[in-house]
């Protein structure tokens, strides 16, 4: 018992907890430096690099996404502008076509009218010419007939051509005047 107590006391005196043990100092240093070298120099730089890469990757990804979005927006705007332009163009063309159409119609109408007028005029002229022809041929025939008739009636030949033609002309003028007055009445 006394022996045990003595050894305990001796042990307590020997081991002041504030005094470092030499073997422990040596082993502690070696262990710490091994840890510092392997963990601090070998492994931690790896994760450091990976973390940097990751943040770069994420930042790059975000940037790329933003860029893509911007591009998409720009494209959309472009398309919308194009669409608006196309719509505008279409309406403009419709308007133009309508205008052109009405113009064409008007032109055609005018043309047709002109053509009609021309045809009518031509017809009038033709009729007038025919009439003139008829009149002159009639005049000749009627003159001859009248002279023939008159000579038969009068029984005398009108040799004097000058007189003859004067008589005929007078007769014809009378005839014409009668016909004109008749025409005036009918019209």
């Amino acid at each position, binding site marked *: *018992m006394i022996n*045990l*107590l003595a050894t*305990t006391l001796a*042990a*307590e005196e020997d*081991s002041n*907890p*504030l*005094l*470092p*043990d*030499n*073997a*422990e*100092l*040596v*082993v*502690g*240093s070696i*262990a*710490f430096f*091994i*840890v*510092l070298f*392997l*963990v*601090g*120099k*070998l*492994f*931690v*730089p*790896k*994760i*450091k*690099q*990976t*973390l940097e*890469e*990751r943040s770069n*990757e994420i930042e790059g990804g975000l940037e790329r996404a933003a860029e893509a979005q911007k591009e998409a927006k720009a494209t959309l705007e472009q398309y919308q502008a194009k669409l608006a332009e196309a719509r505008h163009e279409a309406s403009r063309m419709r308007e133009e076509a309508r205008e052109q159409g009405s113009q064409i119609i008007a032109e055609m109408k005018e043309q047709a009218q002109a053509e009609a007028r021309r045809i009518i005029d031509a017809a009038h002229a033709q009729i007038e010419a025919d009439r003139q022809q008829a009149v002159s041929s009639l005049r000749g025939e009627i003159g001859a007939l009248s002279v023939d008739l008159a000579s038969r009636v009068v029984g005398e030949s009108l040799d004097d051509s000058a007189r003859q033609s004067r008589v005929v002309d007078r007769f014809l003028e009378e005839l014409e005047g009668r016909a004109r007055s008749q025409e005036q009445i009918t019209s």
Partner: protein
Amino acid sequence: MSAPHLLASGGGEEFEAPGLHIFDWGPLFPDGPSWLDWLTKPVLIVALSALVTVLFAWRAFRSPKLVPKGIQNIGEVGYLFVRDQIARPMIGKDGDKWMGFLFATFFFVLFMNLSGVIPVLQLPAPSHIAFAIVLAITVYVIMLFLSVKHQGLVGYFKNMMFPPGLPKPLYLILAPIELLSNIILRPFTHAVRLFANMFAGHLLLAFFSTVAWWFLVEKLTVLGAGVGVVGFLMTIVMTAFEIFVQSLQAFIFTLLAASYIGGALHPDH
């Protein structure tokens, strides 16, 4: 030595609280060759902690993936914790350069501390002051080296003892205090803070578990049973508390190391 054995060494009929002898660990192989005498339990725990730290970092970071998986996630959480809570606030922008040192130190200390509550090991290695000293001196040497490198020998002492912007008579008091606290006390407090916390924590745990063992197993009496139950419950509570303290001390030790390094790099802050 197990708890019953320790109690038996008290030897009497009276309850004897565990004392300093619970920190005495002889050679692991007392009958082995004398050149193995250095291999004690705390030495083994330190070696194991170093091994666990290296294994953890190796498993987590040996081939890190951009998309993390499994243990890399845990390693990254640890890395980000040390970086955002210790390196960057204490050192600043160039704190990332010191991540290797700080990460290794933090997890080495953490695993050494946590061995205090891991069954069978049940001894926080820094409760032997030698290990705390090794760590603190390493930090101290780094701090001195960086200070002289970045501020020059004269500049270092000038920045330390004569910070600008104070009334002149004050320097009479300030200069010796600063010199004392920075050069002499700093490594001492750095080491002792870690050591004392682990030491006291281990003693507390040993005390409550001894109480529980003595009153519930060795000398079970009606009156004593109550004390034993309290001791048992307190052991559980204190174990949880110790886990907290051990983690906190690992954090504080690394935080101080980073603060010393930061002060050496940027004396004006």
